[in-house]
């Protein structure tokens, strides 16, 4: 089973040279730590920055410079600042190549739920609905099962939806899973020490397993 950092590390392998990328809150934010130095990519923060740099040292903390998770950040070389309307114009306009975000549930046709638990948790969708409605490639980072053991890879989402037919790939603590264009999950890789059967058992939606499933490498 992977820990959060290992999930982030595996997702970082999906990043390609020259991409503009939006990282969501939580595990996705950790992906930045594992993007290889020889790739030139630009991280977008939907509160108005292209070019997120590392977290600041104590003496460089600036309250006027935060990411979408409200963490203090720095700007990388060649950064640009802009307002929220412009930020979502670049998101909706399809200029951001890759979106990585967390989820509470993903369905086998690529629907994602991550913003609300009726009667219990109301935090709001933030920028997630805009991101999933527009990005050409959406990768979800999440645990395979909820804390009480329920599969989060479902036939249909039970929670309110954030976006429909949008997730392309899911990286969990157990597996790398593709969402097929015609619907259904396909198992691509398994976490070290995790069996194909365990992954199938912990996936409620349809899971296609073809041939030998390799262990993830980092």
């Amino acid at each position, binding site marked *: 089973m992977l820990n959060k950092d290992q999930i982030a590390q595996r997702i970082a392998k999906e990043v390609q040279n020259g991409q503009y990328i939006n990282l969501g809150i939580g595990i996705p934010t950790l992906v930045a730590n594992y993007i290889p130095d020889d790739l030139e990519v630009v991280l977008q923060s939907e*509160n108005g920055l292209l070019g997120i740099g590392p*977290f600041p040292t104590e003496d460089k903390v600036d*309250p*006027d410079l935060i990411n979408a998770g409200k963490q203090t950040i720095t700007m990388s070389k060649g950064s640009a600042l802009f307002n929220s309307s412009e*930020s979502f114009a670049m998101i909706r306009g399809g200029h951001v190549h890759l979106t990585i975000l967390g989820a509470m549930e993903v369905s086998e046709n690529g629907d994602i739920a991550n913003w609300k638990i009726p009667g219990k*948790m109301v935090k*709001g*969708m933030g920028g997630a609905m805009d991101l999933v409605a527009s990005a050409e490639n959406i990768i979800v980072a999440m645990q395979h099962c909820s804390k009480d053991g329920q599969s989060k890879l479902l036939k249909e989402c039970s929670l309110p*939806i954030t976006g429909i037919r949008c997730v392309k790939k899911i990286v969990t603590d157990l597996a790398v899973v593709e969402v097929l264009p015609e619907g259904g999950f396909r198992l691509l890789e398994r976490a070290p020490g995790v069996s194909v059967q365990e992954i199938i058992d912990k996936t409620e939606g349809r899971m296609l397993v073809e041939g030998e499933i390799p262990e993830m490498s980092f």
Partner: protein
Amino acid sequence: MINKTVANAEVAVADVFSNAVLMLGGFGLSGIPENSIKALLARDLHGLTCISNNAGVDDFGIGLMLQKRMVKKMISSYVGENAEFERQLLSGELEVELIPQGTLAERVRAGGAGIPAFFTPAGVGTEVADGKELREFDGKLYLLERWLKADFAFVKAWKGDTAGNLIFKGTARNFNPMMAAAGKITIAEVEELVPAGELNPNEIHTPGIYVQRIFQGKDYEKRIEQRTVSRK
């Protein structure tokens, strides 16, 4: 040049009335109109509708207006940092419209730009689309969203001049420029107020035409929600 300067926050907010619709700039606690919020708190107001991306935290920003029960309705995209907000919402004391962040930004922009409605893909297939017109363009579904306007817009900038021209710093710009344009009366507070002519016109983010009142802010706390540092 028209001089927009007023003496202080108290003067700037003196005519805000109960049941008014307000816009407040900021993302999280970054770029929020701290001085105007403080001045509003000192007034006996109720039934306000507040349009703001977030609702502050329990003891700072709009959170303080919620504590005082000044707010009837919030229109926001993310309110996760405010326990009092969540409590008032779940108990039904507070009316809330949660909308996607990009839709919120564009609705405000549309309000300032005289565009009554627009189509966006955000929220298609979700409860955000309930009751809204859906239309297909080039094989993809979009939903119709309306503009947002306000009786008063409160924005916070880094520098401003007496003509109301504004320059923002870092990610504290966020919703402030669009809200400046969407307010019937826009009140700008700035960290540094200079005479007209001292700011470089090439660097103005918000032209003074959108700003009705401007004042020199003071005692900025600029609270940080998630102070995150690296060791090296």
